[in-house]
């Protein structure tokens, strides 16, 4: 079997035209997902069953079903309902991009809230007791003690989820979105050369993953500067 380097050289620039879409999916759903995750976390640790129970159910549903199925339900399923078509969200849900961002956001939000909860549980009880003994309120302890320490503890697992989200964006190609994977699939359909195209696509994702790893390494060193004895 031959490996057509020319084909890679020709198709790589075309696939890279999808970078913008891939990054749009990653950044918007990453940001919205993190926001959602913080709300879910606050609900879960509120100590009130009518807040924590719905959050738990939500997390269970979105972790318990494949993200591809979630994308299909939102893209193919929701427009069946007239109320959805009449709602103010229709301009977003009508577009595949809106559906993909919604699905990725809802999915990553469930995972990230559990990651953040891990960080919160990792904050030592003694530190919070010291805050109480100084007269700090529950809210003050959360903002000034729990949140910054938990963020540092959750960061390695969170970076893992961002990398996972990057690769989940490829699923958007199944609902007609021309991200890098979408473009690659089109090229494969034209050239019948899945081997060359998908391998070069895989390498592009790996390069981005490398960049994300490096970025989180920098953030980790910054947030973790208090864990180093020197400097």
């Amino acid at each position: 079997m031959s490996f057509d380097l020319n084909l890679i050289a020709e198709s790589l620039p075309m696939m890279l035209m999808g970078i913008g879409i891939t990054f749009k999916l990653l950044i918007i759903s990453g940001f919205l997902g993190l926001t959602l995750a913080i709300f879910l976390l606050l609900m879960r640790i509120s100590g009130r069953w009518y807040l924590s129970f719905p959050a738990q159910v939500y997390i269970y549903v979105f972790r318990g079903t494949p993200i591809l199925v979630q994308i299909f339900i939102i893209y193919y399923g929701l427009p069946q309902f007239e109320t959805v078509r009449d709602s103010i969200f229709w301009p977003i849900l009508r577009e595949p991009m809106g559906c993909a961002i919604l699905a990725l956001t809802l999915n990553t939000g469930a995972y990230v809230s559990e990651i953040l909860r891990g960080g919160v549980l990792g904050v030592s009880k003694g530190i919070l007791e010291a805050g109480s003994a100084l007269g700090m309120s529950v809210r003050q302890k959360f903002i000034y003690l729990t949140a910054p320490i938990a963020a540092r503890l959750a960061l390695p697992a969170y970076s893992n989820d961002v990398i996972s989200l990057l690769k989940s964006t490829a699923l958007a190609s199944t609902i007609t979105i021309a991200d890098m994977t979408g473009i690659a699939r089109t090229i494969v359909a034209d050239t019948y050369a899945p081997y060359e195209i998908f391998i070069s696509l895989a390498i592009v994702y790996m390069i981005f993953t490398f960049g994300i790893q490096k970025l989180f390494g920098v953030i980790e060193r910054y947030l973790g500067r208090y864990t180093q004895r020197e400097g």
Partner: protein
Amino acid sequence: MSTSDAQPLIQMQGVNKFFGSFQALKNINLEVRKGERIVVCGPSGSGKSTMIRCINRLEDHNDGHIIIDGKELTDQVKDINAVRREVGMVFQSFNLFPHMTIVKNLMLAQQLVRKIPKAEARETAMHYLKRVKIPEQAEKYPIALSGGQQQRVAIARALCMKPEIMLFDEPTSALDPEMINEVLEVMVDLAKEGMTMICVTHEMGFARSVADRIIFMDEGEIVEEAAPAQFFDNPKSERTKKFLSQILSH
């Protein structure tokens, strides 16, 4: 040299505390007057930490009354925070805020709880860091300090809130031997200035020289309460004698 103010600063009356079915405190009655220095000792699991943690409501009691400076501890959050502002606490494991520099550790609660402006909070922080003799560590993170230094910072952090009462929960138990004295010195200084103190500690030298009264606890009860001379030289209860022979024998 206990003063004789009409109202005791701390009153515990018939306090019981349960952890599930285990009774950690049994009918505790204790009065502490302003300026008194109390040392609490007793075997592990005797309820001494639980008792002082009830005083600033890190633990809530099940029965009885705890009245601090005229304010009774109840479930009311406002009352608890009002009491906690007056009661400083030092923990066995220091519990500094690891993500903040030393000076920020000392400023945080001043700014949030006492609403003191930043510049003034910093000034107060540096004042107390000088008093515990480590102003040069102000900009470091806690991890860079030795255990003894961290515990002195913890004491300074509590003092920044200008408390009426200081609680010490085994402040030297987690320290390497050579660091114990630097912490005890700070505590002795504090006692000399007339701070009302309750110290859970096994440092019997400190107890003998500083305490007005020593309280011996066992199995959740106050077994004996006496001035140091009497406590060490002429203990009444058999349990006290046994405890003293165990800790003073080597």
